């Protein structure tokens, strides 16, 4: 039975990918624009699936990195930089933010719900900070940050000197979604990914084997931030706008719903570890599977 299902798996994946791209020619533009935001949030959801689902890091901070990516892209694109530089910055700024925040979190041995509280607070602080920078003095280059009004008129992504229209942006987002998924699948199967899964299951045991859990968790956190930042940049380019609404947790909540709907197997270990952290339940608690079937 399972062998037969395994035989169909590549075919099912191929069909899913064909459907993901083929839909661009099948639906009207308005529907495609809506679908595009789902695809972009699915990339954000994948960063959640990695950080929470695979590594068990109960982070509410993915929206922070999503927002940093969106603002980095918007500010640089509006300052006349090319899409490559703006997208590069949308990866690098969240990476730098995650490295700084993650260093203090993981090397300070903060975990479980405490990490959730701190990352949630960080997202709210950034949300309120961005809300306040509404005066004309708050500029980065030629771009006014706009406070709660956000930054309008964000240019679309240009590839090979050609600005992408809505359909092309959808195809780019879909291609990036497939690439990110495949990359993460490879990461989870790699030795690094296996060690990260082991750290999620029992951090002390992994350390007693000689693995530095702090460095591994920081690595995953930073990779997750880069993916969230990429999603943020796509979101800014999709809407031609970025505002502080991308930063707080409603965005995270939306992405986590997306993560659990799109990729429940990836989320289950994270949900189980969060449940254990919140309730103090032991690993063996009946009915709470300790990481069933995460994708490795």
């Amino acid at each position, binding site marked *: 039975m399972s062998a037969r299902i395994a035989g169909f798996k590549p075919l099912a994946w191929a069909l899913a990918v064909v459907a993901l791209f083929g839909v661009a020619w099948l639906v009207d533009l308005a529907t495609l624009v809506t679908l595009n935001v789902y695809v972009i949030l699915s990339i954000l959801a994948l960063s959640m699936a990695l950080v929470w689902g695979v590594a068990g890091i109960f982070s509410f901070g993915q929206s922070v990195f999503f927002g940093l990516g969106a603002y980095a892209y918007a500010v640089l694109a509006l300052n006349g930089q090319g899409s490559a530089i703006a997208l590069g910055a949308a990866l690098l700024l969240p990476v730098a933010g995650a490295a700084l925040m993650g260093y203090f979190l993981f090397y300070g041995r903060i975990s479980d719900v405490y990490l959730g509280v701190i990352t949630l607070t960080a997202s709210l602080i950034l949300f309120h900070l961005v809300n306040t920078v509404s005066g004309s003095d708050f500029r980065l280059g030629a771009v006014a940050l706009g406070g709660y009004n956000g930054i309008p008129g964000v240019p679309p992504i240009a590839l090979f000197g050609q600005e992408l229209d809505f359909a092309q942006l959808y195809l780019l987002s879909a291609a990036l979604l497939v690439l990110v998924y495949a990359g993460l699948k490879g990461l989870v199967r790699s*030795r690094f990914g*296996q*060690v990260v*899964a*082991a750290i*999620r*299951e*029992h951090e*002390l*045991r*992994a*350390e*007693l*084997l*000689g*693995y*530095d*859990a702090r460095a591994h968790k920081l690595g995953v956190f930073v990779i997750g931030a880069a993916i969230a930042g990429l999603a943020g940049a796509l979101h800014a380019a999709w809407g031609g706008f970025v505002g502080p609404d991308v930063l707080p947790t409603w965005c995270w909540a939306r992405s986590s719903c997306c993560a659990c709907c799109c990729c429940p197997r990836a989320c289950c*270990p994270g949900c189980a570890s969060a449940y254990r952290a919140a309730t103090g339940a032991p*690993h*063996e608690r009946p009915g709470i*599977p*300790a*990481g*069933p079937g*995460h994708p*490795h």
Partner: protein
Amino acid sequence: MSAPASPQDLAIHTEDLSVRFGGVVAVDRVNLSVARGELRCLIGPNGAGKSTLFKTLTGQQAPSAGRVRILGREVNGFERHEIARLGVGVKTQVSSVFDGLTVDASLRVAAGRHRARRPVGSVVDEVLDQLRLGAVRRRQLGALSHGQRQWVELGMVLATDPRLVLLDEPVAGMSEEETARTAELILSMRGAGRAIVVVEHDMRFVRRIAERVTVLHRGAVLRDGAVDAVLADPVVRDVYLGREEHVRA
């Protein structure tokens, strides 16, 4: 007897090691030396400080005073993984295994830290052979029996090819049959200069595996020597039976 080994040649060497929790002295100026290749049991009644000493040796608990030298390196201030990387394999009192991973995946993660960097696959096969757990290699740890989980944890320790093995109550909660097999397994881990330290309550198990024992009581070393002599010592017997006049005197 040969000349006493220098601290550099010892697997474990502590000097006046103390651990305090507020006003409670859990480990009190312990001087412990374990030679390379030795199998030592650390015994003592509940609250004697065995587990605290064990945690201090493995970097899980910082000492309040004194020095700890493991395999020739002073490890005060070392992180847990840094001590492990010296070639120290640890099995904790409450079994610590990767419940959501399979036996195979768990051993592969452990074999990734093999001291001589041998290929992971061959190390895993060897360990599974030694543990006789080949039949369950594809099963998740969370689905195994208590004894099997303990053995997989021992297997993870073995897969790193440690020079010093520290085992905290390896047969706690095991049946008679499982205990016998664990004793066999621990004895088979000896060799190639590998030192093994076992913290244990079960005296029959201690007699079965140990040559030399150290008795802890109230955080301090009470007796240290050959297993038969120490276990026959009236003071040690009284400590275990709860009569403590000898100790207070």
